[in-house]
């Protein structure tokens, strides 16, 4: 028995090393720092329409702020997924809604430019005001579903889109500050009568 196992390990050593490495890599991704705190998440169904309300706190690090001042655009993706629970099987995805907002420092104007999830461009003299502007999301239209659907599970995650960072920062595996995201928050939909 042991002989067979050893023979298998010898024959497939590279594959095994690769698999073990991949598992470690995945675990390290899961263990990324959570610097976006989502509060007061509520999903309401009004007829067929789904609306999302939540508050968010962005705890930007000094390095990120420094990056902002150096022309780096911070693009945040909001991923909203609505699933139907199927016992003993994978959940059925009913709705996927993605949106984004941006924070950018305009050196010419010496202001922080914010483009919110509605696409509105707003300028702020200081970062805190910009973040305050982004803090509360109200009545964000996520899409529509069948009225009869009940017990739908919604999940929300906000994360920094690294593809908009300069390439060296994207692929610098040593620097983890750009792994900036929230936890995945889940809620059951509240149906408004």
């Amino acid at each position, binding site marked *: 028995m042991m002989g067979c196992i050893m023979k298998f390990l010898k024959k497939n050593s590279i594959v095994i090393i690769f698999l073990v490495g991949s598992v470690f890599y995945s675990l390290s991704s899961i263990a990324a720092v959570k610097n976006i705190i989502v509060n007061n998440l509520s999903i309401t169904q009004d007829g067929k329409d789904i609306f999302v309300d939540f508050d968010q706190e962005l705890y930007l690090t000094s390095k990120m702020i420094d990056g902002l001042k150096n022309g780096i655009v911070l693009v945040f993706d909001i991923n909203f997924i609505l699933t139907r629970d199927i016992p003993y099987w994978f959940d059925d995805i009913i709705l996927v809604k993605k949106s984004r907002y941006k924070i950018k420092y305009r*050196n010419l104007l010496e202001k922080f430019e914010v483009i919110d999830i509605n696409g509105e461009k707003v300028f702020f003299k200081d970062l805190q005001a910009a973040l305050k502007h982004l803090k509360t999301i109200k009545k964000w239209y996520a899409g529509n579903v069948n009225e009869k659907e009940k017990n739908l599970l919604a999940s929300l995650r906000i994360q920094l889109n690294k*593809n908009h960072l300069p390439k060296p920062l994207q692929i*610098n*595996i040593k620097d983890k500050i750009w792994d900036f995201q929230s936890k995945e928050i889940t809620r059951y939909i509240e149906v408004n009568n």
Partner: protein
Amino acid sequence: MLAKSLGNTDLLSTETFRLLFIFNILFIAALVLLIAIQIFRLLNSIKKEIVGSKLTLRLVISFALMVIIPVSIVYLVSVNFLTKSINSWFDVKVESALEGGLSLGQKTLNILMRDIELKGRSIAYTIGNTATNEQGMVLRDMREKFNLEEVVIYDNQLNILALSSANDSQIPVIPKYEDIERSTNEFYGVIEEVNERILLRAYLPIISNQEIELRNTFLEIKQLIPSEITNLALSVESVYDDYKRLAYSRKSLNIIYTLTLTLVLMLAILSAVSISFVISRRFSEPLSQLAAATKEISKGNFKKTIPEQGKKDELGLLVTSFNSMTKQLDSATQNAENNQHRLELSRMFLDTILTNLSSGVIVIDQGMRIRLHNPAGLKTLQLGRAKVINKILGEVLSKNNKIYKPIVDYIYSHVKGKNTIKGFSQEFKIKTNDKEKIIRVQMNSIKQDGDLNYILLFDDITEVTEGQRHQAWSEVARRLAHEIKNPLTPIQLSAERVEHKLKNKLNKVDKNILSKATHTIINQVNALKIMVNEFSDYARPAKIEKTLINIDLLINDVKDLYEAVDIEINYEQPQKNLFVHGDENKLRQVLVNLIDNAKDAMNNVNNPLINLRIEEHKNELYLIVKDNGTGVSKDVISNIFEPYVTSKSHGTGLGLAIVLKIIDEHNGTISIKNNKGVGTTVLIKLPLIKNEKS
């Protein structure tokens, strides 16, 4: 792919890059593991002294160095070049220029804003001193005069009181309350970007002389920056941002490029080392096989060949030549083994001959060192089973017995000359304890490989000489018997006739004299007859009639003959009857002769006693005659069985010679020795007949 992914965002995502990076790391780890295993195996092979492993190690080191040194140099140069190239992108002058450009844009906007402020104050003052019903018209005139985009008057509730816009179709955007609030007492300006155009927005309170009517009214002025200035300013900002971004990620860029180059270096080196193992093994394999085969051949395995792989290069030729050589070596060895076998057989044959040769053979070198001998050689020289090879003959013989000194001297005299000799022969009389031996020594020299060796041939010719002597004596006896016996009867008859004729013619005195003389003649003639008869018996050719004889009965018969004699004969009868095959009369004659001799030896001995005993020894019968007489002198005892040798004052000296002859005729042996105390013991050995019926 790693290098390409650095420059193009769309080609590979960050995750893909990371996966690629990890795959490279894992690949490197796998290569390191593979190399470690190969090194471990190689070191293990070296430890086990497997042929070819050291050569493989040397080749691996050589190949690896051939790759590592140039690749490392290229790597160092590349890293250095890359770092310097990246650093060269960030020039202080460029940065200053960009900052200057940006600052120029900012200052231009500020000047424009200042200009708007002045225009705004002028409009506010004019409006403040204009009647309410004329304000709209004045506002339009002022806007057109100052070439403004839009001028609006709001109250504190953000209601539009008056409006003038360059684009009448455009609905004015209601300002933020906080903007209005900030301009309660002073001018407040905002610079914004709207639809890729820079917009100057200004707010200021309207101060009116008709205070009650225009209290808490505000003026909003909007002015779009000319597109040329906007484009230039945004372009400078964009370049500045790009530059700052690049500068910010410079460190990461350095790390990534260095890491990528390091990975490439590692991959190149490790791949080269891995391949070097394969190449080294492939290259050293034929040489290893050759070395292993050579080792086998050195151990004597000439059948070892190397599989020819059909390569026509020098190694292939070497393998073919090696196989040809081993084939020839194998054939030569086979021949040598056959020759050796034949030689061995010849040597064994010679050994057998030498072993079975009755003559003793000893081969010595010039230093008289014994090189070869046969058992008979040692037996003849009474050396038993001594180990004498490489020992000096003189020392060996003098150590055992000094009686061989004449022989040693003779050999030494010839060896000393260091000359080749042929057919030298001499006989030596050697006196041992109880008998005399005659040894003939023959010497021949042989030259072998330049060394002179001597072959010594020793023959114990005692028996031959004795036989010849007996034969001579027999011839003498026969002639004597023939020559003497014939005239004896006429002499006796003549003497009796003379006595008979003259007895009555002579006087008494003469008669007595005649009678004594004739009596003496007759007596002497009779004595001569007896002697001649004995001679005749001795010389008579063997003519015996053998029958099965119970030796016990024979001894008792002979013993009975001596009952009247005043000598005690003690006979120890055996437990069982013992038989010999022989001539009863002859054997009786032997016994009588021995008892007579014993009796004669005990003439002056008190309590004379003759002991007769027979013993069974394997296939022989021992007949022992022991007396307590005077014994036999040492001079005589060695030749006692020769004719005319006697210690007695009377007799012919043929008695024991005849006894010896009879015993010889019965295939037996006889020996005589003096006892430790007194007397002699005669031992006769005769073949024993185990089965009476046979």
